[in-house]
């Protein structure tokens, strides 16, 4: 027990205390000059629930979360399967695919900003070359969330694929052989043998992306700052704006706490599903 004290103290100082302070902030009224007029009960949360922008930011967050997670998982499965096949040069491929995931999101967002420029960018030049009308990638409320999602999918699908490929390569071969003897074709083999066996790996990969996606911030902050007119205002970006532009730390604390709970709920649901699945086996 004594050996754990240093770690425990660090944890309390850096995790528990800030969370407690955030909770206190959200229940009080802190002014920007640092003074605090004290306990106000749930007033900040009342304002939050009455604020349409809060619900919009939840909607935007969930949209990006669901869209990115589904595409990244399906794409990751497909790419991961290809990566699991032994072909010459596989290691090189695997290395190249890591590049988007290890590049800083800020750099990725800045490069995509250039690609997306409606007049000068590469994306529209490409579209025009094949005869498709140019798209205003970040300049309309309908299109902007999709454009942001494309960047995230580009950046993180290879990462999912690498985890899944490693999972596929470590699967035992006996169940597949048994299935073949029972007369299963390739599709049945993949769906009813491969996928269930892969389930633990898949859920870990999805859980990792889930936590990041619910806290979606950096790409949006660099590319649109939540715009145009709040179309990409995720909960995390909204919380940042409340704290640093509107300079309302107490309201921002309420927003960030709700983000905290959103992460716990979504990640908790995943973990629960995983536990249920592994108990069932």
């Amino acid at each position: 027990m004594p050996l754990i004290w240093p770690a425990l103290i660090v944890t309390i100082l850096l995790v528990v205390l800030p969370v407690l302070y955030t909770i206190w902030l959200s229940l009080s009224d802190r002014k920007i000059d640092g003074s605090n007029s004290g306990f106000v009960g749930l007033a900040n949360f009342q304002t939050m629930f009455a604020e349409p922008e809060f619900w919009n930011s939840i909607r935007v967050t969930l949209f990006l979360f669901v869209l990115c997670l589904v595409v990244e998982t399906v794409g990751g499965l497909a790419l991961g399967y290809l990566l699991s096949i032994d072909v010459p040069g596989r290691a090189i491929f695997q290395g190249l695919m890591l590049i988007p995931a290890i590049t800083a999101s800020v750099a990725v967002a800045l490069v995509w900003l250039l690609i997306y420029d409606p007049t000068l960018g590469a994306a529209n030049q490409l579209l025009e070359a094949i005869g498709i009308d140019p798209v205003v990638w970040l300049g309309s409320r309908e299109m902007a969330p999709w454009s942001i999602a494309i960047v995230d999918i580009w950046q993180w699908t290879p990462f999912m694929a690498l985890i899944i490929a490693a999972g596929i390569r470590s699967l035992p071969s006996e169940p597949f052989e048994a299935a073949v003897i029972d007369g299963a074709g390739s599709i049945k083999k993949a769906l009813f043998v491969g996928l269930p066996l892969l389930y633990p790996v898949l859920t870990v990969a999805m859980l990792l992306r889930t936590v990041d996606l619910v806290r979606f911030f950096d790409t949006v902050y660099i590319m649109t700052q939540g715009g145009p007119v709040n179309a990409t205002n995720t909960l995390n970006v909204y919380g940042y704006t409340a704290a640093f532009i509107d300079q309302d730390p107490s309201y921002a604390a309420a927003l960030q706490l709700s983000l905290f709970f959103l992460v716990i709920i979504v990640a908790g649901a995943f973990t629960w599903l995983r536990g249920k699945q592994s108990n069932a086996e």
Partner: protein
Amino acid sequence: MKKTTRKSLAILTGLGMVLSIAACGSPSDNAGGGDAEGGGTITVVLSNHPWQRALEPLIPEFEKESGIEVKVQTFAEQQARDKILLNLQSKSNAMDVYMTLPSREGPQFSSSGYYEELDDYLESAPEDYKATDFSPGAMDGMQADGATIALPINVEGPVLYYRKDVFDELGLKVPGTMEELIEVSKTIKEQGDGMIPITLRGASAAIPFTFGPFFHGEGLSWTTDGKANFDDPAAATAIDEYATLARDCGPPGVINYSFTESSNLFAQGKVAMELESSNELNSVIGESSTVVDQVGVAPIPAGSVEAAPTALSWGIGMSPFSESKDAAWEFMQWATSPEIQLALTEGEIAPPRDSVAADPEYTDTFDTDAKKEWGEAVADIQANGFVEVGPVGAEAPAMRKVIGDAIGKAILGEITAEQAAAEIQEGLTPLLDTK
């Protein structure tokens, strides 16, 4: 110990380690500081701006003369604000001097005690600093609650950059009123062979600076006796003009545009006019520009009532939490001295000092038509500019967002100009009350 407790402790510890890595990026205390006599170290936080780009190369000279080591931290505008605010809110001594926009954050920072008052410093400044030589307009902008909170470092305001070759080819006259501006834009759209007529700001937080002349040009001021004036029908007219230009004659994706995007487009020769800050001259006639010889500069067109350019000065302020105030003042005094402000004009920084603005060494550098026209437009801004970039008050940043968001919706065609005006009026009222 039970297994589950141990597991949760392990998770907590893991989390702690991750967070402690993140915590390394927080503002740390200044190791230097201390004695002003014979040197010391000061930290200066700057926003990415033509003034900063022109000043930085001159700093080693100051370090050699004064023996003071200057650590410069430069960030993009919004990140610089975040960094400055973090330092001030945590009462940190890690920052001594910072760039500030008093027209935006002056009242807010001043009421929070985030500015060291400079009047005493100015009074005891040496003769050759010429403390009274700053133009009255610029110096007025540096006051809050009756005290001087910052020193002006430049003068800027929106001007109209245009392509002389395009105007000649289509036989167009430089627009003098907003109405003519819209007409000219429409002509270019019809006859300009794919040339984008005009680029201007569409990004929410950036809009008020260039929208101001449309609004003031209709004879309106942001507020009267603490009440917003967007319920005046003329406000809708101004919004309609701005939104029409952006929507019908602006570049695709204009809703995300601020000065960087606009100047890029202009320098690449894709657009015939740019409504932007006078600061952008360097970007449109600089090395990377493909249209250097074709640039014309005109004062911003007048509204139906009057010509109303916006005038804005950046300043440098001193942190009240600095532990090297004497060294900090020495740096500020140097950076705003007549000699340095003259040297900075080489980077197209319009000086806030009358003597420098009239100095032949400066005016003689207007060796091209574009620079001459620019010099005249800036002089006009300095003489006639409206200093309120947005509604004044402790909630100024939030109020600018209200204005920008509603005009943004009008640009996207989601609401009419009248609806936008009503939305702004409604949004501003509670923010003005908190004053």
